[in-house]
């Protein structure tokens, strides 16, 4: 059940109705039942059993950790956590990314024996597995680190890990920060409900009016090449890449608006996953504003532990060998390498993602750190005012272009296909902007300009978002203006949204990760 389908909204409306008519104490249970139904509708009982098994493992593990904590048995406590985390990771990798290892194992074994062939497992991962597994790991780790109390009730833990709204594309939540909100029943609050509904509408606009149109252009350019019907060159490749990055943004952030909006209608505030990322002036900042909760997860559970372990173990030796500054940097870069590898791998078990969504950023960010002295000397030499508005604009465009380049590889079939495509970018054909070729990418004139208009609207809204909550600003306006705006948006989604009979909205891109 897609979250932009009619039946999803029937489902949400039913759950809302039941939620607010159930006594406070039992409201969390309504969410649990809803999540169970959602799991069943999206994958059936067998896959749900996998989710239950993984949750029970974390539940039992955390109780054991507590037991060893009170008997001061640190060794067994750590070992328990290690086993739980290892099994959770193994389950995720086996179900989702086994083909990565099989492909690479095949490459190696064929060097020795050309006829050898390990066949694929072909297992299907349960809905939201990439999300709930990482959340269970963070829960277990936080219990180990004494940051979270363990949850005695396994059903409550199932709600934390498997809350249906988060199973499509996140966001990741921390148990100790979200649990109270999930378990306490919320009183109906009209303002929160309206704000949630508005956000839901905005998300639908992003997904159905903009992302679905961009998807058509992207499909024409990228899949035309795959099917061998045409070979895009020059400007088409640039258009394809930018269309894809804007599709990714409107698709994923639109999905988050729907998820966070619906959650707000239940009185639950899930953490933000985006903060106008295209306003970032460098790539590290970009990743602090794009898929925020994944970045935070990796920082807390991957980068810091690796960096701390390395610094404690090799810090002194590294300082002695490379000097004070470089000793520190070598360890930092090693832990960043591990983290970016993790980000790439999480996006999908293939070298395409590992390179384009991971290592590319590692190279760019570490390269930026290494060349920082050169850049700052250069800007001084050329007397560039880095405080100027024009410089900020340049830095934002540069960051957006680098990000666009990297994600375009994610859309290509493989790393080598992506490279092949970009190698044709210099076959110039700028006249496609004026000879009507743009209207032959799958969208007619009206649809094309509607998409441009939608993107322009996102830009305007983003400008306001820089200053604060847009919904707060709208709420301060007079009644007529507000309702014209809400109804306008609603009608725009109904009339211009790409959905309904004979049209199947594309799946959310991040649902596939």
């Amino acid at each position: 059940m897609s979250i932009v389908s009619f039946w999803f909204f029937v489902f949400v409306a039913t759950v809302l109705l039941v939620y607010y008519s159930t006594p406070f104490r039992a409201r969390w249970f309504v969410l649990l039942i809803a999540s169970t139904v959602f799991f069943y509708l999206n994958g059936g009982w067998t896959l749900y059993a996998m989710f239950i098994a993984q949750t029970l493992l974390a539940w039992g593990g955390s109780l054991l950790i507590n037991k060893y904590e009170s008997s001061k048995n640190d060794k067994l406590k750590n070992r328990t956590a290690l086993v739980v985390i290892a099994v959770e990771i193994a389950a995720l990798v086996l179900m989702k990314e086994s083909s990565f290892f099989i492909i690479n194992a095949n490459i190696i074994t064929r060097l020795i024996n050309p006829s050898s062939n390990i066949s694929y497992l072909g297992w299907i991962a349960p809905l939201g597995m990439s999300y709930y597994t990482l959340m269970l790991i963070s829960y277990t780790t936080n219990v180990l680190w004494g940051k979270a109390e363990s949850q005695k009730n396994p059903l409550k833990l199932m709600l934390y890990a498997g809350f249906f709204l988060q199973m499509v594309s996140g966001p990741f939540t921390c148990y100790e920060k979200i649990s109270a909100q999930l378990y306490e029943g919320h009183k109906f609050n009209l303002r929160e409900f309206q704000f949630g509904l508005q956000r839901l509408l905005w998300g639908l606009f992003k997904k159905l009016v903009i992302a679905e149109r961009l998807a058509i252009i992207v499909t024409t350019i990228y899949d035309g090449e795959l099917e061998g019907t045409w070979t895009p060159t020059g400007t088409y490749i640039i258009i394809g890449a930018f269309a894809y990055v804007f599709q990714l943004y409107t698709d994923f952030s639109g999905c988050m608006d729907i998820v966070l909006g619906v959650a707000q209608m239940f009185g639950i505030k899930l953490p933000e996953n985006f903060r106008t990322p295209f306003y970032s002036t460098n790539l590290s900042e970009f990743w602090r504003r794009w898929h925020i909760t994944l970045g935070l997860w990796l920082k807390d559970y991957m980068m810091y532990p690796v960096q701390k372990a390395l610094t404690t173990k090799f810090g002194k030796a590294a300082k002695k060998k490379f000097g004070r500054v470089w000793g520190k940097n070598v360890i930092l870069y090693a832990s960043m390498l591990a983290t970016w590898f993790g980000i790439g791998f999480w996006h999908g078990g293939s070298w395409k993602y590992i390179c384009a969504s991971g290592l590319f950023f590692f190279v760019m960010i570490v390269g930026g750190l290494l060349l920082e002295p050169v850049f700052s000397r250069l800007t001084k030499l050329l007397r560039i005012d880095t405080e100027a508005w024009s410089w900020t604009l340049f830095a934002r465009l540069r960051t957006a272009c680098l990000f666009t380049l990297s994600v375009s590889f994610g859309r290509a079939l493989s790393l080598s296909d992506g490279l092949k495509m970009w190698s044709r970018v210099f076959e110039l054909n700028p006249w496609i902007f004026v000879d009507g070729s743009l209207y032959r990418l799958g969208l007619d004139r009206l649809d094309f300009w509607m998409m441009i208009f939608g993107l322009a609207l996102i830009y305007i809204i983003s400008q306001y978002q820089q200053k604060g909550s847009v919904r707060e600003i709208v709420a301060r306006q007079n009644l007529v203006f507000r309702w014209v705006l809400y109804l306008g948006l609603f009608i725009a989604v109904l009339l211009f949204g790409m959905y309904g009979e004979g049209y199947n909205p594309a799946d959310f891109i991040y649902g596939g990760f």
Partner: protein
Amino acid sequence: MTREQAYERVNKVFRDIFDDESIIVIDTTTADNIEDWDSLEHINLIVALEEEFGMKFTMGEVIGMYNVGEAVDIITARATR
């Protein structure tokens, strides 16, 4: 160890790590107040504090340390134990 004594040494570590003799930390100092204190420098700071005070922070403390006051709380609590 009193808080004042702890602060004197914490301040020294901050100046050393961020190479800035003008730093004066207080309870509410966070990463926002010190230009170079970002996620990349956080662990270096933590390990330098561990070395200075001869103690180990748990990972839970490491990721939960948002301001200097919290660090000093942990340090003084552990020193008196």
